[in-house]
């Protein structure tokens, strides 16, 4: 298609322009850190990773430990205590911020801070796994389509269109119901959901990678490889893949944020991670209870802030990377 050719020409110009003396990596890093938002984003993500993956080791509580309280004495009772079935003992729900619970407890009497850390693990992992799956499928198929063209390209691109045309949310609801129907343990449900999301999202990646490879194929250095007659595998891995890398990295960072949001939307619809495990998404759905929203910001605000910061950070990094790699690159 000619629009691609037009782009090819532009890309070619751009390619020539960027032949500076700095090594490409140095150049990218220099441009990246020139963008302050991107740098801040990177730091935020590092902090979040430390908080979620190392934090739980310092928490005295477990992910879904519930706390009881004696109504009269106001004394908190741990769930392993025999007194929890005594009269006058109730669950310590919606407890205010205290030294025992730095962010209070939620509507089921569980420590918010601890769940925040465990929930972050899930949310970040979900993002990572989905991105890996979508990249694996998308890059492979997109690469094949772009490199071989013709009938292969035709078939793969029709497949991409089919996946594009399937509405996401109704499908996730259905998939979730199907999984329950086949008796898949809720513990593993989230992994399957992640896998399905990855399978659904590959189409966008494939399209992007294919476009990139199509334009690369026309470039002189590829024609040179053709002329020297090196092996196909070498052509792909030594010459094409490194050139597609930037776009892959950018897609990955941007999608990481998007998928964390997607996870919270699915939690809202009741098809996210299963009870009693936490994720930022299912914690933040507490915002829909008007009494919690009004009186207990300690329950909904922390997960909200975590999601906001993380997704924002991923977006900043993605933007920064894109500007750094190639200010012209489109998303």
């Amino acid at each position, binding site marked *: 298609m000619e629009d691609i050719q037009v782009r090819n020409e532009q890309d070619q110009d751009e390619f020539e322009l960027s032949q500076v003396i700095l090594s490409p990596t140095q150049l990218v890093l220099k441009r990246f850190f020139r963008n302050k938002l991107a740098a801040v984003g990177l730091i935020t993500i590092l902090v979040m990773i430390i908080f979620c993956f190392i934090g739980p080791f310092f928490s005295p509580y477990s992910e879904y430990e519930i706390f009881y309280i004696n109504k009269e004495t106001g004394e908190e009772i741990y769930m392993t205590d025999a007194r929890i*079935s005594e009269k006058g003992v109730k669950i310590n729900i919606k407890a205010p911020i205290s030294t025992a619970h730095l962010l209070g407890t939620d509507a089921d009497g569980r420590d918010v801070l601890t769940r925040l850390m465990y929930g972050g693990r899930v949310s970040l992992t979900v993002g990572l796994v989905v991105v890996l799956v979508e990249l694996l499928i998308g890059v492979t198929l997109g690469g094949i389509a772009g490199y071989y063209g013709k009938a292969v390209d035709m078939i793969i691109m029709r497949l991409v269109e089919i996946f594009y045309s399937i509405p996401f949310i109704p499908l996730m609801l259905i998939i979730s119901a199907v999984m329950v129907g086949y008796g898949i343990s809720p513990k593993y449900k989230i992994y399957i959901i992640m896998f399905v999301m990855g399978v659904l999202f590959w189409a966008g990646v494939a399209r992007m990678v294919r476009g990139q490879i199509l334009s690369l194929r026309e470039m002189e250095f590829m024609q040179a490889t053709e002329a020297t007659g090196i092996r196909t595998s070498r052509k792909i891995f030594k010459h094409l893949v490194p050139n597609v890398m930037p776009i892959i990295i950018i897609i990955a960072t941007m999608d990481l944020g998007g998928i964390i949001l997607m996870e919270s939307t699915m939690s809202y619809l009741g098809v996210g991670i299963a009870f009693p495990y936490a994720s930022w998404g299912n914690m933040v759905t507490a915002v829909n209870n008007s*009494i919690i929203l009004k009186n207990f910001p300690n329950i909904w605000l922390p997960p909200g802030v975590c999601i906001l910061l993380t997704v924002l950070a991923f977006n900043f990094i993605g933007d920064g990377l894109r500007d750094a790699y190639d200010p012209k690159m489109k998303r």
Partner: protein
Amino acid sequence: MKKRTLLLIFLLCLAFSFTACGSKKDDETNQNDTADDGADVDGDDTADADGEKVPDKIVATGTYDTLVVGTQTFNGVFSPMFSSNAYDVQAYDPVFVAISRLDKDGVLVDYAGHVEAKEQPSEDGSHTQVLYTVSVKEGMKFSDGEPVTIDDVIFQYYVFADPTYDGSSTFSTLDIVGLKEYYYDTPDYTAQIAAITADVESKYTLDKISADDYKAYLKDSSLDGWWQGIDSYDWVEYLKGEGYDPTGIETDADKLLEMLVDCEYTKYAAYYDPQSYYQAKGESEFITGNLEDGVDVDTIEGIKKLDEYTCTVLFDSVNIYGDREVAYLSIVPEHYYGKDFKKGDLSAVKALNGSPLGSGPYKFVSYQDNIVTLEGNPLFFGETPKIPTVKFQVTAQEDMVDALIGDQIDITDPSASQDVIDQIEEAGDSYSLVDNPGYGYIAVSAKTIPDINVRKGLMHLMNRHPAVESYYGDLAEVIERPMTPTVSEYPHGATEVYAYDPAKALEYFTTAGYAKDGSGKLVKDGEQLQITVGIGSSGTMNHPSAPILTQMVNDMAGMGAELIIQDIDFSTLTTKVDAGELDMWVMAWGNSTSCDLTQLFGSKGNDNTVGLYSDEVDALQKQILQTVDFDERCALVAQELDLIMDAAVYMPVYQRKNMEIYNASTINLETLPEETTTYWNYASQIYHLEMQ
């Protein structure tokens, strides 16, 4: 005819959800269809309908001329014959009147008609038949001016009995003379079915059935629904546990099923029911063969019209709810719905699902923008409605209280909680609380957990009091027996059987043969104790029993066992419970008004999903149904409930209250019913309600 006395209700309907669930309808229908002694209906206003001049439009009595009721998602099927959504029912309810309705105590009383029963011997004198005489009041008119006659009632019977009827009424299953013949469209239905039954009884009862037939049944019925494919259960382990050797065929579905059939036949033949299967099979083959050729039977023999306002319905056997079945129905106009109705084709009736017409205090105006609009009907036979317009507006459950306080709506029914009461009182509005005629429970299936010690162990892990108190505060109480305290036979002094006690639970597990292995897992025969529990809170776990399960997860993890929580939507949950795939499940019963627990815990009960097979319980149930003396019956019920508790299949959790809130600044609170009960609320006498 089997009769379910308890209805299932979707627990989440009391919490928050976007789903419009099928089961809540029963609960709602009865609340909104409810009625009282009809005293205030028979007032002077009846004169209106007798041809006197009536006002064209109803004029508001105060500043407000519109009542706005907050409700939830409509399906838009506003027809008493086809609706399956509680909120649809709520909205069309004022458009119709019923022949009889329930008063505030739940007793059937006259409303727009009358029903009476007379027992009589059958023609051959072999058994007792019951003749119901149903009549409608003379002089009533539908809102389009046409008179109400008994033909309208009979028309509805025929719609319900139609072979293609797919609504929620179960009228076609009643034992009315000639109904089966009409339904199956063959004059000699009884003889043919009898022949099938005789054939089945001679060949397929448990003691007579041949091994081949039995195995064919197991195979065709997929082990009575248990087998749902090779991955649906750990069949290999199961077979090994039963002493079979499935080595080499682990992945061959057909061979595995064959081995299972053999295993089940040899070891558990008594637990299956091939007879019913062959009976159903024979009948369904017979019916399908019958309906292909034109209409053979075009009337129901047992339904006879006496005069313009009276008809009789003849039941072939005693049905204690027979009067409700024939008279607790909304009257629908035949001239409107029945224009193009013929047997086997209900499309013309269904085409009017969106625009109901009846003889109730209000008439239907429109359904748009998520709002159903009704307008006062001056032709209503009772007290003329005071509010010119009533609107039902879809309001999200979590917005209901705020919307009412903000004067956007006037009446609504949020899920009851102490927080809501505080908010309503602070705003100076009014509310009512009535006992929900049902209860929440956690079931432990004896089918999947045959070892009673394991079940008892699980029961000892349920810490109910803090959970219920934290969720409902004073709006629910923990109950100790599987029956709602609104039933008068409930043993109020009953004590707790399985107190929360993890040590005792572990003791029971040990008795059952479980022990910790090297890795700290609680195992028996190398298999970890793993329990799957289903709960229907649509994934959000906003549920009173959530903390009970959380505590169980923690305690069981500490012992080396595992509790797997399947948080699923309600329709999936019922499907899985019916298929017997869950070890435990959390649900609630609604609308249970009887002490008859045959369906729930009887060996042949329809809802005996926990698999309680006890001769002792069966005998007691039979005795209870024949015991007229109240105290004596109470004692028997208490005894039965104790036996059920001993079997450790049902852990009753709570009985809660239903809430309705009223906007004090728009409604004239004095015109609300003096006493709001489970069966009687503002909607029961909506014609009496006034705005300020």
